């Protein structure tokens, strides 16, 4: 995207997620999982113009101006959305460099804002998108308090400014690790959290100036929580224990505007009906089936399937460097009771719903952002992979730092040192 275009888009007050490609693309003949009420269409066609999908259907005429991608015997899905990551915030986390995902020495908490730190020049962008992920939700993962701050929605297309929605959600941790950040006990944590939300309710009518008399949380933090208590900003709550999830439900009864999604929820299945009634979504790792701590004693591979059975909107994908493996995670959820369509939704439409993106991402229909992936077969099968990835209407090369390393070393026979081999 050139700078003039960015400037004009910003000037027009529009989203800056648009791709630069003006190409018209037709994806023809594939098995299309629309992830809408239309369901799955065999041998269907998708038409893409600029950065939008303009048509999805069975009997679509393709004129000569379209570049055709033959998807015969292939599977087509919306671009996958990484549900819970720190992508763009971290290059090498341990003993390494390029780490903005850890803000544990920050003086602020809820106000932490990932959008300022996210870079498209991370090797993770290409490595992740060639596996079918076209956008991610990204937030700081370590802080000193129960709040992990405000996360962002990020496109993995070729944008210089990849944040498509800053301050898109707030993360709070009420699990055992959250309790340790709150003095060591849930008995302190819940009082602290309620107090913070109360303060945000008071603060929503205050116009802060340096002269404002205010003796509560740091002003930046309380201001960040205002959209949360108003229900304008999704609140992601990390919780595992059934008891803790019941506390989250009680919190929702007290602060009725909260738009809550549970994260982790290892024991979610034990309170599946209550979660369903409370209308919470859940982001989980369906493979987590060990008692990593006592709060996860009842974790099981059946968690995703049981929550789905209770009508809960389930999203899958909690990782950063290997968020690309969420397809395998979802496949294992399917192997253990989640219906296959719910497995696909857990990577697409269910994620979009959590972040309020359902009108632009996570499904295939006219008017949606053209994030589309063509797969060699079932995306949840470990032996299948994308053959074409289109982000914001632009087909990206299936190339990454990793594929270049592979190509350099595929043959070890060379007269010259390896650094002269440029794949």
């Amino acid at each position, binding site marked *: 995207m050139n700078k003039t275009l960015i400037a004009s888009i910003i000037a027009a007050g529009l989203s800056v997620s648009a791709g630069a490609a003006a190409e018209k693309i037709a994806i023809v003949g594939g098995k299309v999982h629309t992830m809408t009420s239309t369901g799955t269409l065999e041998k269907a066609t998708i038409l893409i113009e600029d950065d939008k999908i303009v048509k999805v259907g069975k009997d679509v005429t393709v004129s000569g101006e379209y570049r055709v991608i033959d998807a015969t015997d292939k599977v087509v899905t919306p671009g996958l959305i990484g549900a819970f990551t720190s992508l763009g915030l971290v*290059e*090498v*986390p*341990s*003993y*390494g*460099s390029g780490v903005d995902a850890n803000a544990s020495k920050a003086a602020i908490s809820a106000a932490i804002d990932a959008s300022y730190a996210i870079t498209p020049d991370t*090797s*993770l962008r290409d490595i992740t998108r060639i596996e079918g992920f076209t956008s991610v939700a990204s937030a700081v993962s370590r802080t000193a308090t129960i709040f992990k701050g405000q996360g962002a929605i990020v496109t993995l297309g070729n944008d210089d400014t990849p944040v498509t929605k800053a301050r898109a959600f707030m993360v709070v941790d009420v699990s055992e690790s959250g309790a340790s950040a709150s003095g060591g006990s849930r008995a302190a944590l819940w009082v602290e959290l309620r107090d913070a939300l109360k303060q945000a309710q008071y603060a929503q009518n205050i116009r802060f100036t340096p002269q404002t008399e205010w003796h509560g949380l740091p002003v930046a933090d309380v201001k960040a929580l205002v959209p949360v208590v108003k229900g304008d900003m999704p609140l992601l709550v990390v919780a595992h224990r*059934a008891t803790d999830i019941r506390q989250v439900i009680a919190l929702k009864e007290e602060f009725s505007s909260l738009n809550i999604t549970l994260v982790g929820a290892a*024991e979610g299945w*034990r309170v599946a009906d209550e979660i369903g009634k409370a209308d919470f979504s859940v982001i989980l790792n369906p*493979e*987590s*089936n*060990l*008692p*990593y*701590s*006592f709060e996860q*004693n*009842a*974790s*099981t*591979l*059946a968690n995703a399937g049981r929550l789905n059975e209770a009508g809960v909107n389930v999203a899958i994908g909690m990782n950063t*460097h*290997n968020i*690309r*493996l969420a397809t*395998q995670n979802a*496949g*294992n959820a*399917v*192997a*253990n009771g989640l219906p296959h369509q719910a497995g696909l939704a857990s990577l697409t439409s269910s994620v979009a719903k959590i972040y309020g993106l359902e009108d632009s991402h996570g499904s295939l229909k006219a008017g949606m952002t053209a994030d589309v992936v063509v797969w060699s077969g079932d995306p*949840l*099968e*470990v*032996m*299948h*992979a994308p053959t074409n990835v289109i982000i914001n209407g632009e087909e990206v090369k299936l190339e990454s730092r*990793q*594929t270049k*390393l*592979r190509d350099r*070393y*595929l043959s*070890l026979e060379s007269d010259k040192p*390896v650094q002269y081999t440029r794949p």
Partner: protein
Amino acid sequence: MINKTLNKALFTGVSLLALATLAGCGEAEKKDSKEQDALVEINKDPFPSTYKPLPTQTTLITNVTLLDGIGGQLEDASILLENGKIKAVGNDISAPEGVKVVDGEGKWVTPGIVDAHSHLGVYATPDAHAHSDGNEMTKPVTAAVWAEHSIWPQDPGFRRALAGGVTSLQILPGSANLVGGRSVTVKNLPNRTMQDMKFPDAPYGLKMACGENPKRVYGKKGGPMTRMGNVAGYRQAWIEAQAYKEQWDKYYDEYDAGKNPKAPKRDLAKDTLAGVLDGDILVHMHCYRADEMVVMIDVMKEFDYQITSFQHGVEAYKIADKLAENNICSAMWADWWGFKMEAYDGIRENIPMVEQANACAIVHSDSDQGIQRLNQEAAKALSDGRRAGIDISKAKAWTWLSANPAKSLGIFDKTGSLEVGKNADVVLWSADPFSTYAQAELVYIDGGLAFDRTNPESWAISDFELGQAGEGDHK
């Protein structure tokens, strides 16, 4: 030399009694026993296995697609398990009378998976600090410690791994130290004690570690704080081990010659290092970077020992030819990368590229999650390799999970393939195990049915999980 004979005997199952006879043979007349003190012998097996297989029932599994674990695939095959061993494999096996027949129509049979890299039991769940027993982070060379002394058999992770078709596994100390201590190979059949799990007659391993971990842990605790410091540490340890071994060799030689030498003072750490120099203990070295692995190959040559495997080998693909030349296995993940600098160049084709160079490739877990789905890890590596133009069959890919890890652990004469006479470590999969949706349905260890997915009442439950929320659930 007695020393070497003893070692060989221990690992080939010759009884100590027979050995004593052997050692004395032909020498009695030469020596005056009154002038010699009793020979000081080091007991190489002070914590002997008390493993007892499950009760068995002669079983014929029919109509399956069978991967034999050494590169072969049979269609419409049957396999007969009898008295804990594989009795027959093929297309025309008649069922003996009274045999239990399992119709495997549409299903697959493979050897049980052997995981060459696990910390189950030494980093047990719940992962409270109280269970952190895998790294003796008190000094950089802790060859004296043995992982088996940290194993908690009630780790719920063993049972999860069983549901993933894992029948044997090597449990290693962690990678904080240059020399981390002895590893042990166990059957995935936890009982009351770790001795109950120990794989009978399996050789010991020695865990060593390259790179970032030792220098990170000791950089501010007296060193090493650099990679060159690491290498100095290994070399110094081997120099001392050589001297120790020479003392003992000399002692045995002089004793054999009828003299009455004084036995050297025992040193637990050097016992283990000398065991490596004698070829009895197998070195498994945590190493990510290609250049560091090649430095270690030179150290190996300098001190005349063999590195059996590099563990993780994230950059093995860069030196696969050298690994093949030096007969060193690489135990690898399918796609882990980037969590630290030395893992930054991880690629998805690492395993197939090692295979392509005819080097020994192993899919390992190093994870209580990964160990539950090693078949999927092999499937990913296989398909990534194929997309890169490396043509590998599913049958060949299964060697990464069975024969190759079994060879690297010195147990391939007993398990790791579906060959007649081998231990009946066998998995019946609900479908092609290269599919995400396939699950281990029946898992046999030494012919005993250790896991039956179709019968929840029969599932093993660890002590820890008894009486807790989720007890006996679908895990």
